[in-house]
């Protein structure tokens, strides 16, 4: 945790709304981006952020700087996403994690060719299995360190390392399947 974040939390608990606002402004853009990337939906990202911050607000007194605040915040959002909000929507929408994004189902190759590189990459990211997608979002897009990710996922450091490697392999394979892997050497090249 950044040194002054402990002080901000203490100040907030002592009655300073400004301290919370600083904490919020510092972390909310990243949290929202995380929620949006996880859920793929702006409205759901808002719900997730609100729920995560409410959880943070309610738990701050017991938190007391047990680890990086950023990691704690991400962990709360990820758990909420897994446990509650996302599942309730999935019950209605019945999305399949392995399913192609809407609009790609009829002719994935041609459709993906039409997309620009960023959208293709995001589409490929969304097609990964949840464990690979989570770890890539946390590290590559959110910029969290392996140790923080291990705390968030509650797993050993080695698992993070291994999962990231496999996630990258899977992502490249997905891009190549979709025909947008140009410029990327083939995976698993052997001498």
């Amino acid at each position, binding site marked *: 945790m950044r040194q002054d974040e402990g002080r901000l939390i203490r100040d907030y608990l002592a009655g300073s709304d400004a301290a*919370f606002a600083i904490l919020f402004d510092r972390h909310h853009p990243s949290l929202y981006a995380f929620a949006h990337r996880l859920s793929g939906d702006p409205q759901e990202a808002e719900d997730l952020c609100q729920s995560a911050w409410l959880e943070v607000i309610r738990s701050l007194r017991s938190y007391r700087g047990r680890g990086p605040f950023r990691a704690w915040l991400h962990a709360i959002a990820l758990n909420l996403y897994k446990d509650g909000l996302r599942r309730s929507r999935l019950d209605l929408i019945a999305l399949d994690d392995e399913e192609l994004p809407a609009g790609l189902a009829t002719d994935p190759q041609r459709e993906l060719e039409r997309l620009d590189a960023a959208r293709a990459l995001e589409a490929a990211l969304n097609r990964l299995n949840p464990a690979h997608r989570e770890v890539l979002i946390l590290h590559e897009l959110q910029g969290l360190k*392996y140790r923080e990710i291990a705390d968030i996922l509650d797993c050993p450091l080695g698992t993070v390392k291994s999962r990231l490697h496999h996630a990258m392999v899977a992502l490249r394979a997905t891009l190549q399947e979709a025909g947008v892997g140009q410029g990327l050497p083939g995976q698993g090249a052997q001498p």
Partner: protein
Amino acid sequence: MNCQHAQENLKAYLDGELGRLAAAALRRHLTMCPACRAEMEAVHMLSKRLASLSAPEAPAHLRDAITGAARALRPSAARVRRRVAQWVAAAAAAGGLIAALSFAFLARPVPAQAAFDRMLAATEQVKTCHVRQWLQQLNQPRDTMETWYANGRWRMEHWRGDQQITLQVYDGSKLHSYGPATNTAYLNISEQPFHTPFRGFSVSAMLGAFGKNAEVQLSQVRKDRRRLNQFTVTQPKDNPRERMVIFADPKTDLLLAFEVYGHLDTGWKLMGGSEVIQFNIPVDPELFAFTYPEDAKVVDKGGATEQ
């Protein structure tokens, strides 16, 4: 180190997360293996592409809602909350009644369009508003509500003593209701579109929540030589045993008071309603007193008068 092992370590190496000895071994392997060097370049390029994806931008309005919650929920705010517990807003009342009295939200066109239009124009100037909460709602004297309204967005908290029952957030088109999923987390329990524009503490703030099939009758009642607009909202198909009466200033169509009636075995009874609604624009306090529907039998628990 063989190629498979080397490639498993490439990502951690590039991220600076590989141990010193393993990194040295990998570097040695890379000097001898062009395929793994190419592989490293590929992993590096993909990482760069991922890092270059633009971050979705957080909407600004969440800040008000969340910092407002932080203000209300921090431990030192509890004392303040108790002190101001009687204050709620008209819109809060709409939301709270929805939750508490289980109005069904079904649909039929609302006829009082002219009144709505005037009200929409008038309520643009309203920035904040509070209602002194009546304390007889469903025999829950500890129920209180708190609300904020700013920049077209509204949030309301419903408390029972020190326990929060619901959180509702209106985001411009929908009312999101949250309830406690656990002791600490909130779950989005419903999402309800408003069918009339929401303008703070106005008649539309209440009517918009009822859905398109609610029937609304607009009439005028007199009080102290002043005329008030009275909106009677019913849902005959789905909730014939409940009705809501909303009183508005005919000049501004700002919400002045409301009542909720239930049809029990003994006839219509007043279930609850607002006491005082305050605006940050001048409103005649005499207007806060109002008359009840003729066929209503009022159960007086808070100063209301038998009809």
